């Protein structure tokens, strides 16, 4: 029998239904893989083996009764941004030390209702602020991929670096993630996995630790386009507890995968051909265009003239909303408290000790742009720029069905390589952040290897609430490129 951890979600679903193996066996195989790998990769910040086995036993019982859910018995990792009832949830910040929520996020509730099994909580950049998973209080995550002939550690991308590394290294069959400026798609591109950021409002944000509320959206990281479609179907849906969550039916995302791209028009935005872009990224993009053309799509050059303003306006909107959301961490109701001579100094000492450098930087930027007299010049201005960015997309989508771009300007970089300069790190999100600013869905699909032997991804951008077209295009890319292979296992203690 093949290694159970190498299965896709769709294969595992068939195997469980055919009783080729049990949910308990599938879960045990993953717990053993995590045990052997986590010291090297640091993808999980907490494992929940007893709960996992209990959930798997319950899945086996439901399968035996013919009452299997859509994700019955499928072992998943959960980003530490999702509140999980009675299981420590910290957003990988010191300030949420020991926080155990008395409630469950809507997205994870939906997954458990579909029969999924929780293996544990996955590492991420502190409060999801980062593009390399180097800002986590629990330490860096290491990418299972390495450059050819080198054992220097590479970053797994961020902020969902634990999710992307765990999925690539076979430490779960799929993972939840969140995306505020690229935090699902960029780590997926860096690890050869599929990452889907749904339309803003497709998944409920209730019970997810808030970073920037007008941008945050939950989505899956998985190993195939089909698996991402299966997971999104289980995660999505209307939730009265989140007023921004759309009251729309959840389509059968899996059903559209076989429809192909014949007759679709794909836009190629010239503004994404940025100065200094690596030739291999341009070549990958051209390869993607060729694949989609061969599969029957029509390709068309389009223009999104406000693209260059997306990142600077993001770095007003996101920190502003973060500074407001993070005001709740005051040492009173949960998490860390550092004493002070009075209540104000208790707040100040708690937040000084509890927040890391990147979080403080963003809280201060956000406080500055929202401070008296500056609101119109910064936050309001940035929200107006968002309208211009959204309008660019609306106009282009009058004549195309989806847009194809690279996911990132380059492959995974080495740990420490970009952490010295915040602006250099921010530029990693240049191709992904526009999508969040406009609220649209975006999908990153592995499309090849760089000259360094590490994965590269192509991004598909779609119309609001049209994840189906996105998935059809993603499937066509995956069919042409082939499912990304497993990186050479150097991380397991028995390897």
């Amino acid at each position, binding site marked *: 029998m093949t290694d159970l951890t190498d299965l896709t979600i769709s294969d595992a679903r068939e195997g469980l239904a055919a009783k080729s193996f049990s949910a308990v066996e599938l879960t045990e195989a993953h717990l053993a893989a995590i045990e052997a790998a986590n010291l090297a990769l640091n993808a999980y910040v907490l494992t929940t083996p007893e709960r996992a086995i209990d959930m798997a036993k319950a899945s086996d019982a439901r399968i035996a009764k013919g009452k299997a859910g859509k994700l019955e018995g499928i072992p998943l990792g959960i980003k530490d941004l999702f509140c999980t009832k009675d299981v420590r949830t910290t957003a990988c910040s010191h300030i949420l030390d*020991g926080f*155990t929520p*008395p409630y469950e996020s809507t997205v994870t509730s939906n997954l458990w209702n579909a029969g999924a099994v929780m293996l544990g909580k996955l590492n991420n950049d502190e409060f999801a602020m980062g593009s390399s998973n180097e800002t986590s209080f629990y330490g860096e995550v290491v990418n299972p991929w390495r450059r050819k002939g080198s054992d220097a550690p590479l970053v797994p991308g961020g902020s969902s670096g634990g999710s992307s590394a765990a999925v690539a290294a076979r430490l779960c069959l799929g993972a939840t993630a969140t995306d505020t400026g690229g935090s699902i798609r960029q780590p997926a591109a860096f690890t050869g996995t599929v990452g889907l950021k749904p*339309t*803003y*409002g497709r998944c409920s944000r209730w019970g997810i630790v808030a970073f920037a509320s007008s941008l945050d959206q939950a989505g899956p990281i998985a190993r195939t386009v089909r698996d991402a479609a299966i997971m999104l179907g289980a995660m999505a849906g209307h939730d*009265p507890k989140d*007023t921004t969550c*759309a009251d729309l039916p959840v389509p059968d995302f899996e059903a559209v995968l076989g429809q192909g791209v014949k007759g679709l028009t794909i836009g190629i935005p010239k503004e994404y051909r940025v100065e200094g872009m690596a030739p291999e990224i341009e070549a990958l993009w051209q390869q993607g265009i060729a694949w989609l053309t061969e599969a029957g799509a029509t390709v068309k050059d389009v223009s999104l003239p406000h693209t260059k*303003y997306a990142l*600077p*306006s993001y*770095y*007003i909107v996101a920190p502003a909303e973060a*500074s407001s959301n993070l*005001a709740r961490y005051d*040492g*009173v*109701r*949960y*998490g*860390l*408290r550092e004493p*002070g*001579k*009075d*209540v*104000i*100094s*208790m*707040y*100040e*000492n708690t*937040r*000084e000790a509890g*927040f890391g*450098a990147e979080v*403080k*930087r963003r*809280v*201060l*930027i956000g*406080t*500055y742009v929202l*401070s008296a007299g500056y609101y119109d010049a910064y936050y*309001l*201005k*940035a*929200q*107006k*720029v*968002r*309208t*211009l960015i*959204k309008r660019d997309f609306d106009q282009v989508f009058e004549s195309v069905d989806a847009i194809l771009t690279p996911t990132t300007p380059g492959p995974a970089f080495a740990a420490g390589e970009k952490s010295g300069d*915040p*602006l250099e790190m921010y530029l990693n999100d240049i191709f992904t952040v526009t999508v969040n600013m*406009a*609220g649209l869905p975006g999908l990153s699909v592995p499309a090849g290897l760089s000259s360094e032997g590490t994965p590269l991804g192509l991004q598909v951008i779609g119309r*609001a609430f049209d994840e189906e077209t996105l998935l059809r295009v993603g499937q066509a890319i995956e069919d042409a490129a082939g499912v990304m292979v497993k990186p050479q296992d150097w991380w397991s203690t028995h390897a």
Partner: protein
Amino acid sequence: MSVDRATVLRIARLARVAITDEEAQRLESELSGILDWVAQLDELDTANVEPMTRVEAMTMKMRKDEVTDGFCADDIVKNAPEEDDHYFVVPKIVE
């Protein structure tokens, strides 16, 4: 847009973060760099542009004005650093 030391300290005070001198020095240049970079938005004339408030036109739903939650004081104070008889305890505020 250059941010001076006094501004950094004022913002840190507003944000209730007790930064060290070393942090203040670093933040002075980092915040200036980021604000200089976002200043490129001034190139755009947005006088007649509405700010974006939502992705798709969608009417905010109203719910019935009724109590749907409560009677869970134990849960609410469960994670508090200091609690006494269902109260959060903080340093003395009123002399």
